[in-house]
């Protein structure tokens, strides 16, 4: 893609400069066998830096920052990566003070493919970073989302039951999610999700996950991409995001300084039902 090539050029130059002061930059490296996340160091061949396929880089930042508490890293982040980093920072998983963000704009086609409403990393409140590229127009919404509101209550269960009957409980959605970092996960607790049955009994697994994702999901869509059963998970999470916005006035990933409302008192974060 022509736009991506220009962005890549400028990005590589800036990275080469910044690597002189940073301990490393997390980005995608294109090797002969495939493209995967990598920690670039000064002197590495930056022509190998790539922008796709999209892997969630937030958890890798968190891992490296925890292993090296004094190090200063950089990360190549799209809009969704930055939103994930913002929400992780609010929960002490990522330290913004030690992270330089190389923000990268998504192209119009990429926004369309991801049905993304905000394909651009907004660095206004992030302590240090630069963006490359211009914001593209938002992608059109997920086709199922508009359909969903027309489905009456009695049929909604049937819709999700049919979808979740495909679930093989691989935990892929949870494993790949940047916001899932709990050391003991409720989904693995036999008290809440009955073990030994496939598909997991409706609706425990998915309802609990959706509820835990309220005020955390940044719509990076990695869960849906990783689901081997092609379950349209983001339709559900997008619905909850809309509710969280209407009822709590909160948008995950939008503002580094807005505290997550569910743990605040009503005085600090009221609810509108």
């Amino acid at each position, binding site marked *: 893609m022509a736009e991506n090539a220009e962005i890549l050029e400028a990005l590589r130059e800036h990275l080469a400069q910044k690597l002189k002061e940073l*301990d*490393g930059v*997390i980005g995608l*490296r294109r090797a002969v*066998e*495939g*493209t*995967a*996340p*990598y*920690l670039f*160091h000064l002197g590495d061949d930056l022509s190998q830096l790539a922008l796709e*396929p*999209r*892997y969630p880089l937030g958890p*890798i930042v968190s*891992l*490296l920052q925890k*292993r*090296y508490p004094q*190090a200063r890293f950089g990360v190549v982040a799209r809009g969704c990566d930055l939103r994930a980093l913002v929400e992780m920072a609010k929960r002490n998983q990522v330290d913004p003070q030690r992270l330089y963000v190389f923000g990268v704009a998504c192209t119009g086609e990429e926004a369309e493919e991801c049905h993304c409403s905000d394909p651009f990393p907004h660095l206004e409140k992030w302590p240090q970073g630069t963006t490359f590229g211009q914001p593209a127009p938002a992608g059109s919404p997920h086709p199922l989302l508009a359909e969903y509101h027309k489905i009456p209550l009695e049929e909604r269960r049937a819709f999700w039951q049919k979808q979740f009957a495909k679930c*093989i*409980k*691989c*935990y*892929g959605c949870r*494993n*790949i999610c940047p916001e899932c970092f709990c050391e003991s996960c409720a989904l693995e607790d036999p008290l809440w999700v009955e073990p030994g049955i496939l598909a997991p009994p409706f609706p425990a697994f998915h309802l609990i996950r959706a509820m835990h994702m309220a005020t955390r999901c940044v719509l990076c869509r990695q869960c849906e*991409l*990783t*689901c*081997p059963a092609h379950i349209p998970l983001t339709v559900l999470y997008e619905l909850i995001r809309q509710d969280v916005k209407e009822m709590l006035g909160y948008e995950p990933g939008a503002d580094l300084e807005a505290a997550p409302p569910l743990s605040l008192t009503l005085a600090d974060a009221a609810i509108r039902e």
Partner: protein
Amino acid sequence: MEYRNVLTVCPYCGAGCGLYIQVLDGEIVGVLPAKEHPVSRGKLCIKGWNATAFVNHPDRLKKPLIREGGSFREASWDEALSLVAEKLIQIRDTYGPQAIGFLTSAKCTNEENYLLQKLARSFFKTNNVDHCARL
């Protein structure tokens, strides 16, 4: 401060899903699905997600162990294999070939699995051969 992803194939079944092992300073820290792999296309089943769990597991055997008097002691490969051969032949001669079953593994190569079934069928004269991926 080295972080990289090593492309490999899941050892657990015949599908052969591609996955990346996340390696931080030479230590395994996690797994990522390989999004460009033509078979798995960025998806993994639960075994794939936990494919690296056995590598550093405390229960992982590093030496042959022989049970004696209720506990295990370390032995050499020669001693262990001789003991196994002797006992299996004894069981076959006493109880017949159907008394023995052979379990192979997806973590072995096709050639190793071929050898084991050949041993089971040609030498021990039993068809009792199965594979961990079927369990």
